[in-house]
């Protein structure tokens, strides 16, 4: 077993915190691991990435060869695309769709989403909305960890132990927010996958999952929602909804 991850985002989004959680979970699970990161000049609001590898055998290179990346895990959609060319043919993109716009030439969001949903294996989550629902916009990175968790090789407890350790110093409240961010992120990711597995195209799955109130998401409801959203008019009604929907009530919202 060998798993190679590229963690991505913008400087300040907490990429190294994601690395801390997965590194330590990997160590505790008895895996070998290596994790290369970027410090210094490039951190200041620029593109940041980290190569994280774990395996049940010793790992040679700190850098992952092109084509050997199993997952791009990104807290920012444009940054996910930056490393997508290194994915293996079976590789996953687990990414936020919440843009971090600090450059003048950020591409139109619809183009970014079209590029992302063109990949065969994606888990896309509106980490901004989910983190806000969990209690703090800064917890987007832990939302991303939660979304990725089902594709990794750890129990929730193994990961959450280090989420708690990471934020312990900042007090109980922040710890609780980040634990919630992880759980909401995991549910949102599984729900999105469930929609796709039930036959909904990725772009539509993103539309539906983005309308859900993160606190109410139950992945096992995905098939119901997929069935509902396969009808064009119903999908349009869901997309046009102003507020968030309660995932537990799979029903087309009333117009307006």
């Amino acid at each position, binding site marked *: 077993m060998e798993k190679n991850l590229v963690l991505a985002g913008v400087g300040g989004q907490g990429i190294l915190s994601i690395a801390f959680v997965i590194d330590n979970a990997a160590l505790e699970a008895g895996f070998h691991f290596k994790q290369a*990161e*970027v410090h210094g000049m490039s951190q*200041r609001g620029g*593109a940041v990435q980290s190569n994280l590898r774990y395996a049940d055998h010793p790992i040679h*290179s*700190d850098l992952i060869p092109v084509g050997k990346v199993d997952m791009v895990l990104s807290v920012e959609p444009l940054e996910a695309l930056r490393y*997508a060319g290194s994915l293996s043919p079976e590789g996953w993109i687990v990414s936020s769709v919440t843009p971090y716009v600090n450059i003048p030439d950020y591409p139109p969001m619809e183009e970014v989403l079209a590029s992302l949903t063109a990949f065969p294996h994606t888990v896309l989550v509106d980490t901004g909305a989910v983190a806000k629902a969990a209690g703090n916009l800064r917890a987007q990175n832990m939302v991303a960890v939660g979304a990725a968790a089902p594709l990794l090789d750890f129990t929730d407890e193994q990961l959450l132990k280090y989420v708690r350790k990471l934020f312990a110093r900042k007090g109980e409240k922040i710890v609780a927010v980040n634990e919630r961010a992880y759980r909401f992120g995991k549910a949102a990711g599984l729900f999105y996958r469930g929609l796709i597995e039930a036959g909904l195209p990725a772009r539509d799955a993103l539309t539906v999952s983005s309308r859900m109130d993160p606190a109410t998401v139950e992945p096992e409801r995905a098939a119901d929602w997929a069935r509902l959203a396969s009808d064009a008019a119903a999908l349009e009604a869901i997309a046009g909804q102003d507020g968030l929907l309660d995932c537990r009530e799979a029903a087309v919202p009333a117009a307006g």
Partner: protein
Amino acid sequence: MAREVLLGDEAVGLGAVHAGLSGVYGYPGTPSTEIFEFVEGIAKRRGDIQATWSPNEKVAYEEALGMSWAGKRTLVTMKHVGLNVAADAFMNSAITGTNGALVLAVADDPGMHSSQNEQDSRYFAKFALIPCFEPRNQQECYDMTRDAMDLSEELGVPVMLRLVTRIAHSRAAVETTDAPREQNPLRPSKDIRKWTLLPSNARVQYRSLTEKQPAIADRAESSPYNVLELRGRRGVIACGITMNYVLENLPEDHDLSILAIGQYPVPLGLVRKLADHVDEILVVEDGYPFVEEAVRGPFGLPGVTVKGRMTGELPRTGELNPDLVRKALGLPDPPHAEVELPSLAGRPPTLCPGCPHTDTYRAMNEALEKYDRPQVFSDIGCYTLGALPPLEAIHSCVDMGASIGMAVGAAHAGYRPAVSVIGDSTFAHSGITGLLSAVNGNVPVTVVILDNDTVAMTGTQESQATAERLDRIVLGLGIDPEHFRIINPVPKEHETNVRVFAEELAHEGPSVIVARRPCIEKIKRHK
């Protein structure tokens, strides 16, 4: 044995502590900073290790040499270009030799992730005639540091540990000893002639250093870090971390003969054995073609084709990675995701929102408009990012302190206005002497010191000269108090600040403007 998750840098720091370290010295510089900071953290808890940042690498090295003179074990850390600053102390410390162990951990930056060049420190080790270790992984960072300490004390010479960015800033589990070594007692060197490099003594010392060379070479030949495995007639020499890139691409039952090098001088005996066994050798090394040139020699190695960075199999410049090495080994690319991607907008680093430098640059740019936007000399730090759009406020970045020296030279040549922009810590590091020169010659330069109260770029370390101390230094150098101005770089002071710039730009003599406001990142971190 304990297992700890450590950056390569941190493993060096912990190795030094476990080898009986009494003092760590250094100046912050990516990718070396975390070595010092890791030891500093331990020192704060224990209280028996000296750990204070020095004003620059030369001072750091000299302080380390003093601790070695006193018989204790010391580590001095810096980035590759920092060794240029420390070079005088470094070269001569090889001549004096050491008493307590002195290990220099220097971090090179192949690919220039955060540096102005990618010079290869192994040349410095060869130049100074001292041993050099180059770790391949985090475990070796830890082990080699301890070995380097022992070797330094045994041979009486400083020992270099050469890191590259990719090992410095990569994390893995490291097995550490349960039985750290005790510190040395205070036992100052009594050998006055060894330390007093008058020509008559220096000749003796230099001869003594040359006489140590066979022992230094023998240690490399028999080093457990230099491993030769003979298989087929195609050979590879892989230095330090690049051995991982080679192995990443090979099956267990490959037929290459491989020499892995982790300790220098280049083990020529092992190279000879490899050369006698193979028809060709591919030399893989991060940095300059140091080993490649040594192996090929000026006229080639008879009977063996030597390949590497000089012959195009590997790129001449930049950081290596498993993909470049795979190509050089002639192996096919693995399949990868085939999806058409648009060309992506870049996301370069920027000054943080609310950064004081932005306000300083806006005021300076406006004041300079009436001069038809002259070139502004600048220096190394966060403020170098002011070179990029939208500010485009500065037009040079060469070495620590160069902004002042270059502005003085340009002013000598008749250039007006000659403006220098430098940070508080960079000024303390290497700007003071430049300003002294400007004062002594009454040179018309405007020196702008961006005092944000920290070494921001490397992670908000303590600045060596900020606030009143900085003011006293500037005035003490002889700047006319009338042309020593302090501004508050905030948007609401913009008009005032533009006026101050305009007045000092018009002055036909040296003037200093201090733009004083703390780094917002520092305020955040130390809250």
